[in-house]
């Protein structure tokens, strides 16, 4: 969650507001970010699941891939991902992966094809904060000369998450027609913004992409709504863990493949058939024959959490894997974790143990998410 560094920390446009709100600032991905506010992680987590939580995610990298026409831009992104961007409709968003030629994961990203004019020549990409420089260099080396990757300065990004998020948003922006993974360029109280119905908590919610100079005003407006409280990185982590969503640098990295990571849904059918994505030979083989290890959910008996790095052991005491994220799940009201285990042990329901300071905690391999997703999908309405 936090990291030691000697480099001066960057700040988002909301840094002074975080301090005013009593946010406890910690280093994260090179930024000073609030790990929690006065309410604390548990209360912030529960508030997001029951009402609406507002997150400053301005540290994330907002990039634009621009070219002469949409087909050229989509083809350029397809060189480094397994997604089908040729067929991404205007106003739609897609989760994808930047992949090495070996089929491992450089970053997990969100890609938006804007509705309207800019969707004819441009894709918007959100990179993980800690990976922006790596991603920029990696994508840059694979681009044809007609396509440029730009990271416009002075941007901000907010996430409003939770079952009341939609009620709050409708008071300020025309988002009534948006469904999960839809995108719209609109206004928030008259201020131009882009909004997607998306997030990383498992809840219904929205992400707002805006100019840095508008960030504080819009944040204060949202915080003035009775349903909304500010939420820090601590609860963001426990929420995404309960939602079964991987965190780059912990659950996925340049040593893991999408198949091992249980992210096979990100490899589109068209790209599978064409076998034209990075690492395709290896990945298609893994999809057919399986992998040596697999990312799984872990439900631990009792109340003692297992943390990243803890060994997962089989019934004979042999190490069969390792925890990559773990903690206490406030909504589950129990410790939850995810990690990689040998494929022979990956079936849900299997009994394993996790070694925490010499104690073998009885654990079950569990399906994920641990808390049901509550996205408002286009089909389900």
């Amino acid at each position, binding site marked *: 969650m936090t990291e030691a560094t000697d480099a001066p920390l960057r700040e988002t446009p909301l840094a002074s507001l975080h301090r005013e709100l009593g946010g406890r600032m910690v280093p994260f991905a090179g930024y000073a970010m609030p790990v929690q506010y006065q309410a604390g992680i*548990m209360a912030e987590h529960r508030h997001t699941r029951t009402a609406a939580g507002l997150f400053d995610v301005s540290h994330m990298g907002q990039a634009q891939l621009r070219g002469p026409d949409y087909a050229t831009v989509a083809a350029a992104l397809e060189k480094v991902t397994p997604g089908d961007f040729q067929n991404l409709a205007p106003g739609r968003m897609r989760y994808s992966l930047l992949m090495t030629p070996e089929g491992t994961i450089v970053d997990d990203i969100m890609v938006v094809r804007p509705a309207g004019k800019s969707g004819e020549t441009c894709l918007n990409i959100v990179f993980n904060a800690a990976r922006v420089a790596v991603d920029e260099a990696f994508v840059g080396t694979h681009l044809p000369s007609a396509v440029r990757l730009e990271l416009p300065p002075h941007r901000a990004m907010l996430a409003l998450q939770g079952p009341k998020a939609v009620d709050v948003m409708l008071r300020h922006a025309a988002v009534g027609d948006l469904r999960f993974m839809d995108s719209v360029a609109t206004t928030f109280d008259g201020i131009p913004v882009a909004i997607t119905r998306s997030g990383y908590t498992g809840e219904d919610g929205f992400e707002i992409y805006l100019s840095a100079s508008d960030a504080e005003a819009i944040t204060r407006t949202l915080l003035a709504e009775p349903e909304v409280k500010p939420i820090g990185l*601590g609860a963001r982590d426990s929420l995404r863990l309960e939602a079964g969503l991987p965190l780059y640098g912990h659950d996925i990295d340049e040593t893991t493949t999408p198949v091992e990571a249980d992210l096979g849904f990100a490899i589109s059918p068209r790209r599978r058939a064409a076998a034209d994505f990075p690492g395709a030979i290896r990945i298609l083989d893994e999809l057919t024959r399986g992998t040596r290890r697999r990312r799984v959910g872990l439900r631990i008996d009792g109340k003692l959490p297992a943390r990243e790095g803890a060994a997962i052991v089989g019934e004979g005491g042999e190490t069969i894997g390792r925890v990559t994220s773990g903690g206490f799940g406030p909504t589950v009201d129990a410790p939850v974790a995810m990690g990689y285990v040998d494929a022979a042990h990956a079936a849900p329901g299997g009994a394993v143990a996790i070694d925490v300071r010499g104690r073998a905690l009885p654990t079950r391999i569990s399906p994920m998410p641990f808390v049901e997703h509550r996205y408002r999908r286009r089909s389900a309405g």
Partner: protein
Amino acid sequence: MTGYTRDHEWIAAAGGEATVGISHYAQDQLGDVVFVELPQVGKQLRKGDVAAVVESVKAASEVFAPVSGEVVAVNETLTGDPALVNRSPEGDGWFMRLRVTDPTELEGLMDEASYKAFVDTI
């Protein structure tokens, strides 16, 4: 009298025994406590040994023995109600009682005023 360590334990000694817990500042830094791993009664601790582990939502943190001694009691209430550490860190949320081996070890501790001054420098 209650003494404090630079690792944010408090220790209240009386009649050869000492009660140990974590400071208000420590619980505030840790956040919501979800589990406390306490030592076995009868365990011999040397000053500086890991005596307990506090698990908060975000991390595990070690609690060190502020003095050497034998564990004569642990606060079993924390097993069912770990959040008591947040509500009453320097009262009902105590961790353990030690039979103090070397009373001179108590002399190096900070008093409340010095500890408060120390915390203000962090």
